[in-house]
């Protein structure tokens, strides 16, 4: 790629790092202004059975006797070196807790994203090419998908496929089939906005004169769709996918609970109830990293998809004079 693209990519990556750090700071500040001194409360809990020495060590580690700003800098320094601290509830390293839960959630979220994209493309294609009445029905699917809450879809799927059809058992929530249904649950509401964007841009692109001209060149509708319409229609959808990842992260908490899966959702739930500050901080930062990374990828992809995207203001079109 050109040096313009390199410069553009580096700038965007730098901006992404700054966003992650800001998210970290914000999370830290929000947790620290919450009423109650979470860490000290937990440490002093007799159930923990920590000795006064242990407590002193932990207090020194987190700098709990120091002003908030010093605590923040200490915490940020640890974050930058990859040191996430220890859970206040289990005394396990936070990296281990998150690391154990992450694969399950990543599998769920990634398959949900892929399923959502497939749903959206199928819906959009149907809306475009099915005969009149059917197209109208297909067009109403996204709003239907959006209006049904995530947990209702999950419960209906479990009732239908686990209890009635015995496609999977709820006792083994990590089996491939169970994972598939959990992913479908998560994918359905997420596919709706994606499908809507895709339908709208396909409608727009297929009315463009170039589509008419391509048709006059004898292209079949399927070829026209694949060769001409998908790429320009994908542009707004790529941005949408990036936003959807945020929804996936939130939705996976509910879905994991319904399907009884262990994952980041469960970790968050326990950490919130137990006021486990280091774990919360780590999970929120991780979400920020994922969200920012996906958006970075979307940003970097758009100039590759659309040659008209200007990387810099100064990059003028090289017009070959007629």
């Amino acid at each position, binding site marked *: 790629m050109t040096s313009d693209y390199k410069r553009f990519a580096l700038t965007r990556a730098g901006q992404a790092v700054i966003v992650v750090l800001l998210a970290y700071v914000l999370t830290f500040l929000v947790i620290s202004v919450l009423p109650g001194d979470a860490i000290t409360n937990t440490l002093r809990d007799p159930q923990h059975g920590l000795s006064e020495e242990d407590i002193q060590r932990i207090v020194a580690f987190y700098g709990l006797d120091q002003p908030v700003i010093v605590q923040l800098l200490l915490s940020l320094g640890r974050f930058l070196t990859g040191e996430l601290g220890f859970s206040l509830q289990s005394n396990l390293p936070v990296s281990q807790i998150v690391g154990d839960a992450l694969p399950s959630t990543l599998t769920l979220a990634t398959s949900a994203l892929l399923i959502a994209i497939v749903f959206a493309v199928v819906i959009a294609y149907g809306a475009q090419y099915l005969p*009149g009445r059917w197209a109208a029905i297909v067009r109403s699917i996204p709003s239907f998908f959006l209006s049904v809450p995530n947990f209702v879809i999950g419960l209906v799927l479990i009732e239908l496929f686990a209890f009635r059809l015995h496609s999977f058992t709820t006792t083994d929530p990590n089996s491939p089939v169970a994972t598939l249904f959990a992913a479908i649950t998560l994918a359905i509401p997420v596919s709706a906005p994606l499908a809507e964007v895709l339908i709208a841009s396909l409608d727009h692109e297929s009315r*463009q*004169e*170039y589509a*008419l*001209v*391509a*048709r*006059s*060149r*004898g*292209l*079949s509708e399927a070829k026209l769709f694949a*060769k*001409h319409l998908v*790429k*320009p229609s994908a*542009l707004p959808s790529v941005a949408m996918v990036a936003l959807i990842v945020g929804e996936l992260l939130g939705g996976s908490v509910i879905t994991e609970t319904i399907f009884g899966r262990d994952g980041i959702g469960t970790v968050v739930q326990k950490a919130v109830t137990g006021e486990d500050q280091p774990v919360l901080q780590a999970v929120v930062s991780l979400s920020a990293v994922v969200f920012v990374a996906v958006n970075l990828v979307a940003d970097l992809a758009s100039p590759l*998809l*659309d*040659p*008209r995207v200007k990387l810099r203001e*100064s*990059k*003028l*079109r*090289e*017009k*070959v*004079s*007629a």
Partner: protein
Amino acid sequence: MPLNTQDTNVSADLLADLLTVQGLSIAYGPTAVVHDVSFSVAKGESLALIGESGSGKSTIAKAILRLLPHGEATATGRVALNGRDVLALPEKHFRPLRGRELGFIPQDPASALNPVRTIGAQAQEAAALLGETDPTVRRAKILDVLEQVGLPDPSRVYDSYPHQLSGGMLQRVLIALTVLPRPALIVADEPTSALDVTVQKLILDMLTELRRELDISLLLITHDLAIAAERADSLVVLKDGSVQESGPSLEVFASPTTDYARSLQADVPALHPDRYRNQRITLTPAHDGGSRTPASSAPDAGLQIDVRGVTKRFSAGGKDVLACDGVSFSVERGRTHALVGESGSGKTTAVRLLLGLEQPDGGDITVAGQSTSGRSRADVREIRRHLQLVYQNPFTSLDPTWRVGRIVREPLDQFGVGTKAGRAQRVRETLEAVGLPSEVASRRPAHLSGGQRQRVAIARALVVRPDVVVLDEPTSALDVSVQAGILELLSKLQRELGLTYLFVSHDLALVRQVADSVSVLRRGHVVEDGPVEEIFHRPQHPYTRALLGAIPLATAPTEEQTSKQLAKATA
């Protein structure tokens, strides 16, 4: 052999006519837009469908190409291509004809190619119609045809994206892709109306030559009678979806028999250079008799606009572009001066500088004796009151949510002119002056025709009683018959109000009709200026000559047409 006689019978019928349209009617839902249209195109012949917007010409073209929107439009009648009824064929059997038999050149080259794919990728689709499977052989054929349409450096064009090429180049690309599979018939829908005049001529010349070389028939869709007559063997004049008149071009053009065709012919600027001039010359003394017009209230009749050596530089991407390089022109009171040029000539920048929308880097602009340079914003605003603009496109220049009354009143509100009742009265008078009925004031722009909208735009400019009106391509978005009405109105208003016009246009034929003097601009320079007659009769600069040469004028039959008609007569 019995089979053979049947065959020759059919083919004799077919040889005569490549395309036969019989009783074609098209409706969008319950609304019929084309009624019982019949015509035919012989092999190697060219036929033009002429009409104004809403005449159904493009709809007919789309019906022949079977590109009408599915389910929305229904076409009945018979469209036969080489004897096969195109309308009755199932899509599966029609698709092989697309491109190979029937080519299509669209109107706006800038939107006719997929913006996110390279020219080459799209050309491969056209090359595939030749039945060639090897992409490298296809590429060689594509490069050949790109060269054939006069594109320099075909391999660079092949690798380019559409936005990297100019409009003229894109239209060459589209023509190349259309002729590549050697279709029998090309349907060209206003193929040059989005292009500059000199480019238009080059493209049409190239198309004519290619057609002759490859023996391709042409169905040309156009609103421009002069282009049609110059480029087509026969004409079909359409109005409101019905055929008004048809026949050999020269006949229809020289002696139209129907009223509509006659009025169309009369509205072609190139044919009637002195149409408005006569009115002006005979009627100007009446104005000197002196009513209380804004012009006569001013003491002396000197220069209303004086632009001296104005320079404007834009920097883009480290490169400096001189949009105006020492541009000078002046306009006398009550006269019309034209700025003529193609895209990139600097005419728009000159107007923006004059209106104070941009600040010049050098030079001086004087309006009604007052210099605009080095003045405060408030002063410039006051000067601008004497200077009003009528914008090019009345379909976008009027706020669609406002009623006409408010649109026209806005400048009065802006400048705080008079009382509320006085302003309402002024709006009524101005609407009347531009020939609009008073009930229009309560309507929104969407309910008005293009001509009515442009009248509203003119009323908005005139309501503050300016001395100078800048007319930026005031009729380029309008049909010729509507254009004629607007030009008549403008010349009447100039007569009655003593207005000074600065007329910006790319259309020399039009300029000749309306302007007294003209400056020809090219790349920010004035290449030539002077009285209109002089520029037209004795152009000095080669560019002016090129512009004049680009005016389509079918006064004498072209070589091609004579030979064709001779051939017909002897056949």
